Structures are given as C-alpha cells and as structure tokens.
C-alpha cells in the first residue's frame, strides 16, 4: 500500500476575502506581511459570487513536476509535498504555466518561483483564517495507520445508500480488531446481513444476534466465561437506539452498574429505521416518524429525546463518549480509549447517526448533515473518563450555527412551525448548558449546581 496525504480544503462560501491567510503566509515565509511573498492568494471577479483560491494542492500526479526541465520540482512520497529545489531551478517558469490551480507563482521581488510547502504539517494560513474557509484535513493519517487492515465485514452488505450504520460498523470493527465477539441486537446492523442466515454471515469475527432486550447481559456472560478460562477477548455491542435506550436499556443499565467489561456502541439513528421509521425514545422533539405523523392533530413528536449518554455518565461507566463520523479523528481517539476502558469495565460510545432513508435526505448529504448536527450544538461531542470524574468537550464549537440550518436540511423536520423551531433552539441551548455543568471538576458538584 502507498500513502494518503493531508490537504488544505477551501470552502468558498465561507471566505470573506480578508486576506489574513495571505499575510500569515508572507509572515511565516519571509517575516514581512508583503502579499507579494505569499504562497496563497484569494481573488474574485466583480461578477463572481465567491472568492477563488490560488494555492498548491500538492497533486497526486503533479503537472509541474512532470513539466520541470531541470528536475527542480519533486514529489516527496512521505509527506506528499511537492518540493521546489532552489539550487536546481533554472527560472524558466514553465511550472507556473503547467499548474492549472495557480499553485506555483513567480515572485518579482525575489525573481524566483514560490509555492506552498504545507508549513511542515502546520499551515499558518489555516490557523489565520477566522471564518474557517480553510481547513487542514488530516483524515489521511487514519488511512495511513488503519487503512491497510482488512475490513472485518464482507465488502457488500445490504445497507441502504449512504448508510451511516455501515460506515460506523466497518470503522469500529477494523479498529477494534478480530479478537472480538460482536453482538448486534435487532436493528439495521443485523438487518443488513451482518449476522446472516442459513450458515452465511457478513462478519469475519464471531458474531451473534441477542434479543433486543438482553444484548449487554449476554455479552457480560460471554466475557465472564472468557475471563474464567483465561482468554482476553473484547466484547463489542453494535446496537441501535432501540437496543440501547428503549427496551435494551434495562440490561445495559444493569451491566453498566455491575461494571461488566465491554464496549457498547449505540448507533443512534433516532428511531426504528429497520422496521419502517417508528419513533424511539431518542427521536428528537418535532421529528416526523410513522408513529409521530404530521397532520391536523400532530406535528411530529411531542416529547424530547432521552439523553442516553448522560444517563450512562451517571452510571459511572469507565468511559462514555459521544461521536459523529464527520469528526473521524475524534471518533478514532475515542475508540482507542474505549478499548482500554473496556478492560476495566463498561465503555459506552453514543454515535450520532443520520439516516438518509428514515430522515428523508439525499444519501450524498450524509456527512454534511451530521456535521451540521455538531456545529449547531444539537450533538455536542464529548467524553467522560470515570477516573477524572467529569466530562470533557472534545470538539468545541466556538460559534454554534442556529439549529434551523441543521433542521432545514432534513425532510423529517420540514413541517416545523416557527414556534417549534424556537422551542428546539431553546432546548438545545438548555441541554448544552446542562452538559457544561458536568465539565466541572466533579460531576456531582455540577449536579448540585443544576439542582
């Protein structure tokens, strides 16, 4: 296997043309803020709606490297950076014509070409960009570390297009590894064929299908058997919100209270998607489902979602975290900690899992919808470590978007009235304030504040 490389992404709709990136680049490369020395620039024609970016992309197969007659440009296979060697350059400037992105430019002051080198993996322009129109994407690090490992599910499973559950189960089990017993109670994950029928399965590790009610207690029993015979095997539950928050809750709560050693992953798609989109206790207020319809009498669900991850914190689990897959580095970090914590007791990860089929949005928007959920603070990302005794917010949203930007992207919220939108915004703010109380030194202190 080769390698993936970090890259700088640009979101034109966020760029306000302030040129802070340009100054930051010039500053770090030449210690002056002269734009002429900047490797990055943004510009737009008066008719254009958005700014465009001129910046080296560190192409996979760079035209500038191909066209350089002096071999002064080379692609570094380790870092992915296209490196310019001043000593070999003959100043012909062919590279500036070869590059379709204006990523290598001629500097009339130094009389040389110049290009971005990603600042050794810590780009100054990205840090300087206040509206966050530039993002340094390091997902390639996950690919480089884990991408070479066999996916522990077969390539094709019967999940819908753009299924977040499929994405979750593949990443989770690849990271946790084959020395694992997987339990998947009724829901989408066995529904797509992970357990299988008639002697045919889609999972390459031992897997079984508990009842919706007893996932955690069955896994606890399997784990205790392995402990007794002296084998170190990881227990993993891949349950939906029904199998964790509704009818599965009593066995989960019991196992958490007893400190059973397992990783319990709740794939929260906010309803019973596998059986035709019925409400669950984690379906949010206002959401349409087939059992909370929209009509004259009802306008979606009338009750608020159960805050399952906070309930698990109050069980003093070894580790509790919320996750959303747009923030994959955050999720992998939490998996690392969950694996360690599951050697001592219960590790619970609650994953926000938008469902294109049941929530009524285009499958291609899967990651974008989940990202908006986090950026509106509807789904704060945090973790709780029992020995620290408090919650740590792992992805701080400095300026949360209004919840309506998230809600309007999803069909199940299309009917919401202005009053309902106001209510959801208020509830979201209140819940976040409550969460912040748990970030204090002791969760019990936070609670007495809340009371």
């Amino acid at each position, binding site marked *: 296997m080769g390698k993936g490389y970090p890259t700088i992404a640009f979101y034109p709709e966020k760029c306000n043309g302030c040129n802070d990136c340009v100054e930051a680049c010039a500053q770090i490369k030449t210690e002056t803020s002269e734009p002429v020395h900047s490797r990055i620039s943004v510009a737009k024609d008066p008719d254009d709606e958005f700014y465009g970016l001129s910046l080296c992309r560190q192409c996979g197969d760079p035209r500038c490297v191909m066209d350089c007659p002096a071999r002064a440009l080379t692609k570094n296979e380790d870092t992915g950076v296209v490196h310019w060697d001043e000593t070999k350059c003959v100043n012909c400037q062919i590279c500036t014509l070869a590059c379709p992105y204006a990523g290598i430019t001629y500097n009339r002051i130094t009389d040389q070409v110049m290009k971005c080198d990603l600042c050794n993996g810590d780009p100054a322009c990205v840090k300087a960009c206040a509206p966050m129109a530039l993002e340094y994407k390091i997902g390639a690090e996950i690919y480089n570390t884990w991408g070479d490992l066999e996916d522990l599910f077969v390539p094709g499973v019967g999940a819908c*297009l753009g299924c977040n559950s499929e*994405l979750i189960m593949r990443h989770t089990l690849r990271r946790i590894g084959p020395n694992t017993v997987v339990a998947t109670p009724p829901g989408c994950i066995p529904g797509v064929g992970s357990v299988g029928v008639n002697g045919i399965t889609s999972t390459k590790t031992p897997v079984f299908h508990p009842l919706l009610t007893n996932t955690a207690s069955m896994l606890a029993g399997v784990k205790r058997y392995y402990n007794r015979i002296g084998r170190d095997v990881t227990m993993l539950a891949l349950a939906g919100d029904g199998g964790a928050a509704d009818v599965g809750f009593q066995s989960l709560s019991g196992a958490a209270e007893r400190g059973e050693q397992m990783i319990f992953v709740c794939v929260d798609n906010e309803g019973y998607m596998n059986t035709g989109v019925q409400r669950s206790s984690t379906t949010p207020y206002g959401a349409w489902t087939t059992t909370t319809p929209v009509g004259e009498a009802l306008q979606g669900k009338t009750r608020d979602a159960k805050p399952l991850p906070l309930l698990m914190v109050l069980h003093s689990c070894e580790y509790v975290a919320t996750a959303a897959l747009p923030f994959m580095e955050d999720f992998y970090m939490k998996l690392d900690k969950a694996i360690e914590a599951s050697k001592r007791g219960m590790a619970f990860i609650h994953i926000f899992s938008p469902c294109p089929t049941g929530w009524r949005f285009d499958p291609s928007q899967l*990651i974008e919808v989940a990202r908006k959920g986090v950026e509106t603070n509807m789904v704060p990302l945090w973790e709780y470590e029992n020995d620290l005794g408090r919650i740590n917010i792992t992805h701080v949203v400095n300026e949360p978007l209004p919840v309506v930007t998230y809600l309007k992207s999803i069909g199940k919220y299309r009917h919401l009235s202005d009053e309902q939108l106001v209510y959801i915004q208020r509830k979201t703010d209140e819940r976040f304030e409550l969460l912040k109380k748990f970030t204090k030194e002791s969760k019990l202190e936070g609670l007495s504040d809340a009371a």
Partner: protein
Amino acid sequence: MRQQARKPFDKSKIPQDLCPIATELSELKTGDWRAERPVVDRDKCVKCATCWLYCPTQCVEEKPTWFEAGLEICKGCGVCAQECPHQAIAMVEEVEE
C-alpha cells in the same frame, strides 16, 4: 492488505446438535444497485483519502496517484463526491452502452 480475520469454522466439524453457526461469508455484490457512478478526475485527486474515510461501503481503493471507488461494491450514494475537498469526483449516470 494485512489480513486480520481467522478462517470461518470447518463445516464438517460442527456437531449436528449445536445451534446454527455460519461457516460461509456472504458474497453480495452491491455494485448492481448503482444508478450513478463516481468518476475520479485523476488530475484533481491529491490522495487525501477523504473519500475512503467517509465511503460507507469502504470500497475505495488506492491507486498509484489517485483513489477511486471499487465498482463491484460501490452503491453510488455520492458521499465521496460531496465530501471530496477538491471536487475531483463527479457522479455520472449509469446508462447502457
């Protein structure tokens, strides 16, 4: 690819009075569900692996200078095209030649 999984159980060695145990892996090829196919512009791909990271089927394969979806499995959901930070992937309708 580093193999992780052990081989499934040998069917002939499973006692008849045991509960049902799977001994074969499913070979579902989901590529024939696809209505649109992701097509990668190799010039634009920078190998950032974003498509691999977010592909629900994890069918994205690494090539020498680009990444692309394995069409035997790709269901055509379009997540990769939406998430590609350099707009290097276009969704193209599948039509009979």
